[in-house]
């Protein structure tokens, strides 16, 4: 499959008063044309930082130490701002986690949509295009919604409005950063179905970031599992869930409460490491039951354990 997005050995750190936080520790990630990929990980593992690096939206204190990000063969980290805006307008769309924070509370949805369309260089019929975008996101009564302020909408509706804005122009790749985290389960189900439908209609590629393993399994063809700034396992969705290899993935799946009522594991002891002084070697070893002396010294490489199933752990060698 042809790669639409390719992240190679990305290292990102943040300057703070306390010192330098070494967050991303060599991310390698590919998204093929027409592929649905999910990045799963717990709070603070660097999922959003990865996406923001691609969009070049990182905070000012962030430093990209190393790595390359290719979108359709062009390195996004080095292209001009003009070209970057092209990518943001017509290449990659993004839905953020908290729709309430992503929308401006003092402008109507219509005004915000028109601004986006204007920035995209559309001069005529912006109102019609805006209403079409709202209809695309299956917002009921789109004409009235166009005149509404964000506070007049429910959480699910606001997220639909954000989807409308991300897709108001045709995009090749959609980034969805925890699009359903603050939503109720029945609304989550509807929003995920909508994203899936738009993926098919628009023939895009999709990167879904989530902390919920269930959501990733529902949507993605392929899954990347992240822990403390590294990809620790990747593979086809079914492979990852039926046959997890990394101790962290195994622990995470076992810790989930199941509908079958199957006994839950006792969780994973400890917590995510401090990025000021992350453990050398494998960043998971302080929490790992299987850690050996080599884990403390060397960062494990990605090893292909099965067809397209990669894991970064010294247990598999």
């Amino acid at each position, binding site marked *: 499959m042809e790669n639409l997005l390719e992240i190679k050995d990305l290292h990102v750190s943040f300057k703070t008063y306390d010192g330098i936080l070494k967050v991303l520790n060599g991310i390698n990630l590919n998204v093929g044309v027409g592929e649905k990929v999910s990045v799963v990980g717990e709070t603070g593992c660097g999922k959003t930082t990865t996406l923001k690096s691609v969009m070049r939206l990182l905070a000012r204190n962030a430093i990209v130490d190393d790595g390359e990000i290719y979108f359709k063969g062009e390195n996004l980290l080095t292209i001009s701002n003009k070209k970057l805006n092209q990518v943001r307008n017509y290449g990659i769309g993004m839905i953020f986690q908290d729709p309430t924070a992503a929308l401006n509370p003092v402008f109507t949805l219509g005004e915000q949509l028109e601004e986006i369309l204007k920035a995209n260089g559309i001069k005529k019929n912006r109102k019609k295009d805006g209403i079409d975008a709202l209809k695309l996101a299956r917002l009921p009564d789109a004409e009235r919604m166009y005149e509404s302020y964000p506070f007049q909408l429910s959480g699910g509706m606001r997220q639909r409005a954000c989807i409308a804005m991300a897709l108001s122009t045709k995009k090749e790749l959609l980034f969805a950063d925890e699009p359903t985290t603050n939503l*109720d389960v*029945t609304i*989550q189900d509807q929003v995920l179905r909508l994203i899936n439908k738009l993926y098919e209609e628009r023939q895009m590629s999709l990167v879904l970031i989530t902390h919920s393993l269930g959501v990733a399994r529902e949507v993605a063809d392929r899954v990347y599992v992240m822990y403390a700034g590294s990809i620790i396992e990747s593979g086809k969705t079914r492979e990852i869930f039926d046959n997890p290899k990394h101790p962290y993935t195994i622990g995470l799946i076992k*810790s989930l409460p*199941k*509908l*079958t009522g199957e006994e839950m594991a006792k969780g*994973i002891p400890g*917590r995510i490491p401090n990025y000021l002084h992350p453990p050398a070697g494998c960043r998971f070893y302080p929490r790992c039951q299987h850690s050996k002396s080599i884990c403390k010294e060397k960062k494990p490489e990605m090893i292909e354990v099965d067809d397209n199933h990669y894991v970064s752990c010294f247990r598999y060698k």
Partner: protein
Amino acid sequence: MNDIILEMKNLKKYFPTKKENMYVKAVDGIDVSIAEGDFFGLIGESGSGKSTTAYMVMGIYEPTAGKVLYRKKDISIPSVQRSLSLKRELQIVFQDPGTSLNSQRTVGQIVSLPVAIHKRLHGKKLKNKVIEYLEEVELPAEYYYKHPNEIGGGEKQLVAIARALATDPSMIILDEPTSALDVSVQAKIINTLRRLQNNFDLSYLFITHDLSLMRNIATRVGIMYLGKIVEVGPVEELFLRPQHPYTKMLISSIPVVTKEEEKLRPKNIKSKGEIPSPVNVPPGCGFHTRCSLAEKICKEKEPDIISISEDHQVKCHLFDTD
């Protein structure tokens, strides 16, 4: 069956709005009884009135109508009027430990307060007792001197649990205690709660929106929608044989991780619509606007509570016998 420890009878809470004669019907007539030693899960979407219910039990809100009974005694009074012994018996753990713990105080000070008030201890005895409670939730003694901002989210919630435990209560209300936490941490908190229930003979009222979690830990479950309880029953029964269309919709919406779980999700039902505003509650059955099986009667008449088996009740016209 064990004695009933907590009972709510036709409990209602209406909040006035700016317009006259318009009310937010947060809780609109619920009947719940929780037996001694139960782990009762109250499940609902946001806006269904589950937290309001918890606050009425704790006396933070005064009910508009109806009663809360604790061991057959009416406790529908504000918490300032409640006796010290009643406050000791009923404790609560809130959703967000970041805001429910005072960031200016140390963990020791936070847990000391209830111990000092209810056990009249001071000095060295007080400190030892507090450390005992911290150890009970598996926090090391050195946490006594830490501030909440120095510890992780899961550990903060353990402090909140230790504080609730410090009065030796009989019942703890848990208002979404794990919804702000990651799953690996959630599992630890849940295991602690279970162990404490055994060690201290506690009863729990656990408020949550997470159905899979309740499947694992609750003994009985109530499903709340728009201020009313639409289905209540033993956990296994309710998950294996859900009856109310809303319960089915909820279970079918859960994203799962195994094939075995997939089989348990009701097929032929799709989630649609959103919970209506509790100010303009639809007439008849509150769920008819989202229900694919709704008929004429659902829009006109509120359904009665119908018993399907001894302790499995459902509030839906589909089960009308006549």
